[in-house]
């Protein structure tokens, strides 16, 4: 028997920081066959499958790893898509270190199996599925084509339903196309995943804004159920002076211009603000994405301001590392108090230093302003990456749909809302969260829809 490598995982080839800083091509390059097989062989095949329990969509991880180890990549793909609708996406953007890989037995003493990298490997080399006839068990309308909507549609189609997705933008994918940059999740990968879903029977109607072009009530007349996966809504701002100056952007705007509208390409008609000194406020993955886009758009300096310390940064470690390698600087324990402007344009940002005090309700130490610590940083662009509030359009036009005070749709763990036949999941329910949690919510809602509709008939 060959010796099992239980120590270090196989490294992922990554483009060098100097060359990748100036384009939007993918940073991580992916395993080859040999490396994938070697990495998969590291799996111990634990009986109690801790990794699979850590997966929000329940991918049969040990089973697909065993198939990869045997070189049966096609079968491994079938195994993954039995549970996940977007494996090439989740293989790239999931926070595996806190989910599957975080639960891996190997991780206790050494390094966990690189499950995410293997999922990506399997998904990237999979052949396109053969078209299937549309299911006849019922018709479900899905609002929004982001991760929640796509996962819900994929699961419903697999269960024999016809799923029709209504998307407000001109292209499907939601945050996968407008938010996450190409260098982290190439748009061709998203398109391939969506093509795979449409060949399995999912229908997508673009340029259709539910709440404006049509209402949920109208959809309920034509469909057996409606799933709301409307995602992130209005960007939050700090409410400080100068925030509406030219040169202050929400991360949503900055990323949408860059990613969805491809403003970095010479022949794109969409403008993007070319700045020398960019400040990004916030510490999540969206802040990292915005900072790394700013680097690629040619900024001379990009600085992320975060009000707590590095330890509390909510962004994935890998994203923070990549950002640092690319030259993004960080100022921790820093809180903006005012944006300075001249003739309506940003010239700088006034900040205060912070210290960490007592733990707050989230279990993190609360940042407290340090007296007399005000200072100014020069800036010609400021990007606010502070999260979002849910989109108001559906709630406004759907009588009886219960929402929380901040606007999140009230739904149980299976996505059931206050209205019969209406389900919801993803950021519209939880507020800003991750792609995989949204996928999990979409999938659970699909299971609930199937269960509820089967009971009725």
């Amino acid at each position, binding site marked *: 028997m060959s010796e099992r490598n239980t120590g270090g995982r196989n490294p992922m080839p990554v483009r060098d920081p100097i060359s990748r800083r100036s384009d939007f091509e993918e940073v991580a390059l992916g395993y080859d066959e040999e490396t994938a097989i070697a990495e998969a062989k590291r799996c111990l095949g634990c009986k109690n499958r801790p990794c699979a329990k850590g997966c929000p969509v329940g991918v049969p991880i040990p089973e697909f790893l065993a198939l990869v180890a045997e070189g049966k990549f096609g079968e491994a793909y079938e195994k993954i898509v039995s549970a996940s609708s977007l494996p090439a996406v989740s293989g790239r953007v999931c926070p595996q270190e806190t989910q599957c890989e975080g639960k891996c037995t190997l991780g206790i003493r050494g390094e966990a199996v690189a499950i995410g990298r293997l999922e990506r490997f399997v998904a990237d080399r999979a052949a396109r599925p053969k078209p299937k006839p549309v299911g006849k068990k019922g018709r479900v309308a899905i609002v929004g084509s982001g991760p929640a909507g796509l996962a819900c549609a994929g699961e419903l189609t697999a269960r024999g339903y016809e799923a029709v997705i209504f998307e*407000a*933008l*001109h292209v499907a994918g939601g945050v996968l196309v*407008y938010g996450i940059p190409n260098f982290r999740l190439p748009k061709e990968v998203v398109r391939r995943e969506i093509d795979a879903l449409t060949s399995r029977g999912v229908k997508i109607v*673009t*340029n*259709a*804004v539910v709440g*404006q*072009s*049509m209402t949920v009530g109208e959809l309920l007349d034509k469909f057996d159920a409606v799933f709301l996966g409307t995602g*992130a*809504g*209005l*960007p939050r*701002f700090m*409410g400080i002076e100068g*925030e*509406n*100056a*030219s*040169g202050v*952007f*929400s991360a*949503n*705007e900055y990323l*949408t*211009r860059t990613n*969805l*509208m491809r403003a970095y390409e010479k*022949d*794109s*008609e*969409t*403008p*993007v*603000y070319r700045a020398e000194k960019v400040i990004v406020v916030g510490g999540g993955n969206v802040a990292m994405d915005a900072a790394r886009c700013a680097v690629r758009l040619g900024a001379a300096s990009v600085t992320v301001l975060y009000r707590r310390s590095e330890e509390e940064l909510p962004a994935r470690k890998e994203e923070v590392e990549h950002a640092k390698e690319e030259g993004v600087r960080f100022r921790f324990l820093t809180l903006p108090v005012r944006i300075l402007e001249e*003739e*309506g*344009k940003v010239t700088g940002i006034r900040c205060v230093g912070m210290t960490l005090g007592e733990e707050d309700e989230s279990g993190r130490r609360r940042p407290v302003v340090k007296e007399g610590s005000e200072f100014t940083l020069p800036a010609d662009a400021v990007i606010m990456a502070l999260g979002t509030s849910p*989109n*108001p*359009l559906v709630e406004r036009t759907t009588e009886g749909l219960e929402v929380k005070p901040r606007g999140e749709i009230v739904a149980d763990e299976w996505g059931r809302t206050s209205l019969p036949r209406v389900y919801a999941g993803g950021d519209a329910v939880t507020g800003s969260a991750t792609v995989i949690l949204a996928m999990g919510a979409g999938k659970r809602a699909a299971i609930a829809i199937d269960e509820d509709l089967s009971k009725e008939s």
Partner: protein
Amino acid sequence: MYTIIEKEKLNFSTVRMLVEAPLVARRAQAGQFVIVRADERGERIPLTIASIDRARGSISIIFQVVGGATMSLDRLSVGDGIADLVGPLGRPSALEGIKRAIVVGGGVGCAIALPIAEKLRALGAEVVSVIGFRSRELVILEENFRAVSDRLFLVTDDGSAGEKGNVCAPLRRLLEKEPFDEVIAIGPLPMMKYVALETKPFGVKTVASMNPIMIDGTGMCGCCRLTVGGETKFACVDGPEFDAHKIDFDEAIRRASTYREFEAAARERHCNLYRKEAEE
């Protein structure tokens, strides 16, 4: 694709298009807008719905050819398709209950003012329209306004058509003499700012229709934000109409110029393309 059924030049830089868009026409109301993307490389731009034909499933849009995106749109002809057109977006104008109104339109803003004047007329209100342009060559929709207005005042900056001056003069004369329930102003930001200043002393409710820079138009990107009564509002989902006495117009004017350099470069690029074609 959204097929262009009719295309007409209203003046040398303003174009009207009748477009097949059944999903938009079905629910559209006066005051709402659409986001249009001319082609695959195109920018998403907000354009107000100028007329709605539910039976034919069509709407018309009126736009001024000013930047790269509107130039691309203008290159399309009858029978061509617009890549993307989504709507209706924004809240409809709240016009119920108004008995006497002044509708003020400035330049291409008249395209937005007209359906509002029409709707007011349909609701039985007395409608006085004040429309202003830089000069005679730029006058659009005069006859359409005449048809739906109890009285019409036409002004031009240079006096080449109608009264010489801007919309504020007839507006002031009207307000000095008669009571009105509401003034609705749609036009360039400086015009709306001065209309608001003009009507304020009279205490008459004044509404301005804002048309800031937008991308998605559905409450996602936040770039259409403006300050109204000290609060940040989003024109796409909270507007486009707001209480004109509370809008921070100076801020809105500054924000509108965020991409001015880029727009100038885009114009240059497009013009060069035209020039090249002409030479070939």
